[in-house]
């Protein structure tokens, strides 16, 4: 656990000073002024224990720590923050929900607050305050955290994943710009393969990358796991078309994608074996920060997901909501902290620290400096706006989250693409698995 002091704040500020952001004493002054006028006054002697996902970009962590330290200094709230890996956040938050102790705030993935709606502190006032001040929430962000009219948590950010490609390979394949629709995208992948500069997308049990691009293919063809009433509709002509399209793509990929996990495409791209893949901005950030990969970084570009036959974006991006438990002894401090996190003076600095890894869920932050700091970042600013919620068109909640965690869609495509099952068999198995979950 981390105990934040004024010293920590100053250290964090030093790291960020180079970016010209609000740091050190200035950040402290802002925090103090904010605490005096904020709608929520932290309870005297408040102590908050916060669990968050383990950071991937160190500068993001610096910005987060500086913000936490400023909040502590301004409100007198003791802050204990600790990190867990992506997959451990949900079980540990659930243990806290079950036992009614241990944590005040949990920052996790997907639809975390929907897992225990009776255990969370309603955040309607915080959502209204922030939404009103910063241009409203994106649609998917609101759906991820709302149950009826209640906000079960606050959608802090979205971890965006987009197409990462080598421009030289596209030029050689005869594509002046990145394809914007499915047929052109397939043609591009075929051309890349013909030039021995292949594309590749994870078809293994990759929680992030595998689920993201295969839901994009599925939804792009107008197919869904469940409809608006949570009726299972995976076994459909639209899904069959999605399978055919995916098989054609798979045949153009670099060999081995059926075994890929979330880190495989990063390794292959940075090693110069892969020329187009789907990922967060981390490949580009890694290349930029490695002097030996200067040329690769210069040749690396990002693009939006092409739009499928349905004619509108069908992306699945990773939501990152925060929740406060209703058994916290310090509900005002918890609400104040969440609101403080998303104030402009903190949030834009934090986005800059994340270098594009995090994307805003409040519309006003579309103009944040990070998106113009490097033209190659800009694509990622769209993530929260273009994504569908994890449930697609169905109900957001534990069943949709389970279907994703159980790789139902990933396995269906992998079964067909690798020849393990025919289209009917692959769809039938997915249908059976969904019935198990939605029973």
């Amino acid at each position: 656990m981390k105990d934040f002091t004024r010293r920590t704040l100053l250290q964090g500020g030093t790291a960020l000073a180079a970016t010209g952001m609000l740091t050190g004493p200035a950040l402290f002054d802002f925090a103090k002024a904010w605490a005096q006028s904020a709608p929520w006054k932290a309870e005297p002697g408040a102590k908050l224990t916060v669990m968050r996902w383990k950071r991937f970009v160190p500068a993001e962590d610096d910005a987060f720590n500086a913000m936490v330290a400023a909040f502590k200094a301004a409100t007198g709230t003791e802050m204990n923050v600790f990190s867990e890996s992506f997959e451990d956040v949900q079980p540990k938050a659930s243990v806290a929900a079950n036992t009614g102790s241990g944590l005040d705030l949990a920052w996790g993935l997907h639809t975390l607050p929907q897992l225990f709606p009776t255990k969370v502190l309603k955040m309607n006032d915080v959502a209204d305050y922030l939404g009103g001040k910063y241009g409203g929430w994106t649609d998917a962000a609101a759906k991820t955290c709302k149950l009826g009219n209640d906000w079960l948590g606050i959608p802090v950010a979205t971890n965006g994943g987009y197409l990462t490609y080598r421009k030289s390979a596209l030029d050689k394949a005869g594509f002046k710009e990145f394809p914007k629709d499915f047929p052109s995208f397939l043609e591009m992948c075929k051309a890349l393969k013909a030039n021995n500069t292949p594309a590749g997308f994870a078809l293994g049990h990759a929680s992030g990358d595998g689920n993201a691009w295969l839901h994009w293919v599925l939804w792009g063809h107008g197919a869904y796991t469940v409809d608006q009433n949570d009726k299972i509709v995976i076994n459909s002509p639209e899904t069959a078309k999605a399978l055919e399209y995916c098989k054609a793509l798979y045949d153009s990929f670099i060999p081995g994608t059926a075994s890929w996990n979330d880190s495989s495409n990063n390794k292959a791209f940075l090693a110069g074996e892969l020329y187009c893949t789907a990922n967060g901005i981390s490949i580009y950030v890694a290349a930029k920060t490695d002097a030996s990969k200067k040329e690769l970084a210069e040749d690396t570009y990002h693009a939006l997901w092409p739009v499928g036959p349905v004619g509108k974006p069908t992306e699945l991006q990773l939501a990152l909501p925060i929740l406060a438990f209703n058994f916290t002894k310090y509900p005002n401090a918890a609400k104040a902290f969440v609101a403080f996190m998303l104030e402009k003076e903190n949030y834009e600095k934090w986005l800059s620290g994340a270098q594009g890894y995090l994307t805003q869920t409040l519309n006003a932050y579309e103009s944040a400096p990070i998106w113009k700091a490097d033209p190659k970042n800009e694509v990622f600013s769209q993530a929260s706006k273009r994504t569908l919620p994890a449930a697609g068109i169905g109900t957001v909640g534990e069943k949709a989250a389970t279907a994703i965690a159980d790789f139902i869609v990933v396995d269906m495509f992998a079964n067909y693409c690798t020849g393990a099952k025919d289209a009917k068999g692959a769809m039938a198995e997915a249908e059976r698995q969904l019935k198990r979950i939605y029973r």
Partner: protein
Amino acid sequence: MSEASAWTQLKHNRNWLGFWFMVPAMAFLIFFLAYPLGLGIWLSFTDTRIGRVGQFVATENYEWLWDDSIFWLSVFNTLLYTFVASALKFAIGLYLALLLNEHMPFKAMLRAMVLIPFIVPTVLSALAFWWIFDSQFSIISWSLKHLGIINQNINFLGDTTWARICVIFANIWRGVPFVAITLLAGLQTVSPSLYEAATLDGATRWQNFRFITYPLLTPIIAVVMTFSVLFTFTDFQLIWAMTRGGPVNATHLMATLSYQRAIIAGQLGEGAAISSAMIPFLLAAIMVSWFGLQRRKWQQGESND
């Protein structure tokens, strides 16, 4: 005459004292072994999810598993993995044990080297194998390509057959030292005079093995193989670190599927049902070994029946 106090009884009654000496062991077994097992079985009859208490649903979880093709694939994978890996671990382990039991230079060093795979943390060795069999960066593919034997990388972990072979190979590598060293310990207990007498009677090396070594080693083989089968059947780390059950669930074992459904997907009841479904297989393995040993009457000083 007044009744003796509990303290007096404790001091003088050996049965009473013995009972109290047993209490810590009993408590340990009940709280750390029996209770979790019982709780797991109970959970399998509920729809408990991570984050909320479940309701009793009788055998519903098992009924869904009965028609679940991925569950049956995991059962098949587990049996294949256990049978092939255990048989090969036994063959290689016995061969190594016999070899290391001979007089040879650097014997102590060689025996120590055999243990190396066993002392490396499982996750580290699994990560090493993951790299060795990586679809893009396999050292094997790289070497064969540079030798001009193959033109493109072997799709080790992306092809269902190859993936099964790879995880079985990794399990064998890791498990052989346990079998080899334990059998070697058993071989050390066989009296050299038996071999001398047999040699004087004109026995060949094969006959020495068949009629002296093997019968005397049988009890150790039974124990070693029971443990080996149990460890292999319940393996988790190697698979999870190397393949996460892929590609297309071809390497999902019952243990990994249980983890995926219970912890990752949050369905504790269903995950517990998959774990509980392992119990009959494990009991069968123990029974085979148990009754195999019981039948050997020589243990009670009689000849085998």
